[in-house]
């Protein structure tokens, strides 16, 4: 298979998995699911790191640096705030 077909296959299969795995979610978890999945969308940090670290030109490095900052806020903030919310739900067990 050529490059595009492979990545496109991965994309479609991931979409199916996403819909299957998350199909039923109770309202209590709507917000934590959103903030937790948002932290996962911070995976863009990977792309930002590669770009910032390869230091092609000062311009790409500046763009990538800003991207690293934003994506890290997303990752660290997202997982931490989700954890904080879930701790509130758990306390009453």
């Amino acid at each position, binding site marked *: 298979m050529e490059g595009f077909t492979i990545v496109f296959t991965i994309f479609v299969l991931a979409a199916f998995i996403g819909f299957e795995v998350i199909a039923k979610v109770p309202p209590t978890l709507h917000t934590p699911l959103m903030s937790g999945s948002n932290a996962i969308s911070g995976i863009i940090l990977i*792309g930002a790191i590669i770009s910032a670290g390869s230091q092609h030109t000062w311009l790409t490095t500046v763009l990538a640096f800003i991207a690293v900052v934003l994506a890290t806020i997303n990752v660290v903030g997202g997982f931490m705030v989700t954890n904080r919310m879930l701790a509130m739900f758990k306390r*009453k067990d």
Partner: protein
Amino acid sequence: MSPAIVNIAYLVAASLFIFGLKGLTHPRTAVRGNMLGALGMLLAIVVTLLDKSIVGYGVIFAGIVIGGGIGAVLAVRIQMTAMPQLVAIYNGFGGAASVLVAGAALFEIMVAGDASPIPLDAQFSIATFASGLIGAVTFSGSLVAFGKLQGLTNEGSVRYPGDQIVKIALAIVLVIFGVLMVQYAGSSAPYWLMVLVALVIGVLVVIPIGGADMPVVVALLNSFSGLAAAATGFILYNTVLIVAGTLVGASGLILTMIMCKAMNRSLLNVIFGTFTVVDDGPSADEVYAGKVKSTSPEEVAMLLSGAKRVVVVPGYGMAVAQAQHAVRELFDILEEHDITMEFGVHPVAGRMPGHMNVLLAEADIPYDRLKDMDEINPSFKQIDCTIVIGANDVVNPVARTDPDSPIAGMPILDVDYSKTVVVIKRSLSPGFAGIPNPLFAADNTLMLFGDGKKMVEEMVKCVKEELG
């Protein structure tokens, strides 16, 4: 490190994300799910840091320290009442990062020319287009959503003549820049111009959406933040970006559909349509004149003292009034005297999916007392007293009775079936749908006019005197 090992590590990270998201859908496994997600992220980051193309770590670590610091401070210090804004702005950051990474990749390839490991072909251009477009719309749309939720801008629906035409015109401009990007693949100008147009479109799409429709927007932007990352994965041929981004896209879309279903409206209707204003519907005067009975905290306290089962229906008004802690006090005193208190939560109550659940959990209400609409609706006939705090359209019986109403067919909480309904509200002003609510004039309804928090606090005081 060899590419094979890196890709295997990415596969493990992607699997951890799948397990993590699965965990997040069940109360018992949610904490572990979140941890698994974080673990996957850590693995992906560490492996990436060992990538052979990385020559300098200074910039990366500076970025991670700054971003991590900001993220941690925000996460620890944010008030639970500000959660919708926080989720909105996080979505925006993800989108902006995608725009920047795609833009940087474009520059890199232009500079590297034939030496570039990534071919400058149509796939690259289209993926860059998608990444910049989705990322920019997510960013500016989230900023507008943040402004609305934070109260910085008009929270309602802002419309102007010809708004749909302006959007269509901009969409055409967008497509033109997209074609130019493919045509002049070695130039970055079309990309940044396209991003500029997409930023404007993001603003224009979210501005007309307001108030009660916010949960749909927040969920949809959540989905977009993931899809933007997935599109960037197509640029960089990075599998973990594609898988993780797509998973988030799917999860956000599922939440969006749940929200739309709870309002009996299609996604297109929420984004492009508006509630059709019905002139022939009954006016507020016809509905309310002479029929509204107002009450006092003392009277409600007496009602509650004689009740066996009480249900509280919270709405956005409870969040605005910050009444959740007063409600918790009421919960404590009633439970102490064997009066059961439950909560009927409508899926779109508040400004983001699950908003009421988060607020009530923060106030230490046990989550098994929070009932979904489908769970609580059959029991309203056995409820002695239902207290509606700051909710309106989601308890409007017109949705059941009048097929011509703008909210016809929307699933509602059947509070009007309970023996007595107490509605705490500042005035008789209509909700987001802009129509009068016959519930307020019903025989079994008492209106308690005032600030939600103050009224509940006074009720608590009176109930304490009543029950001793």
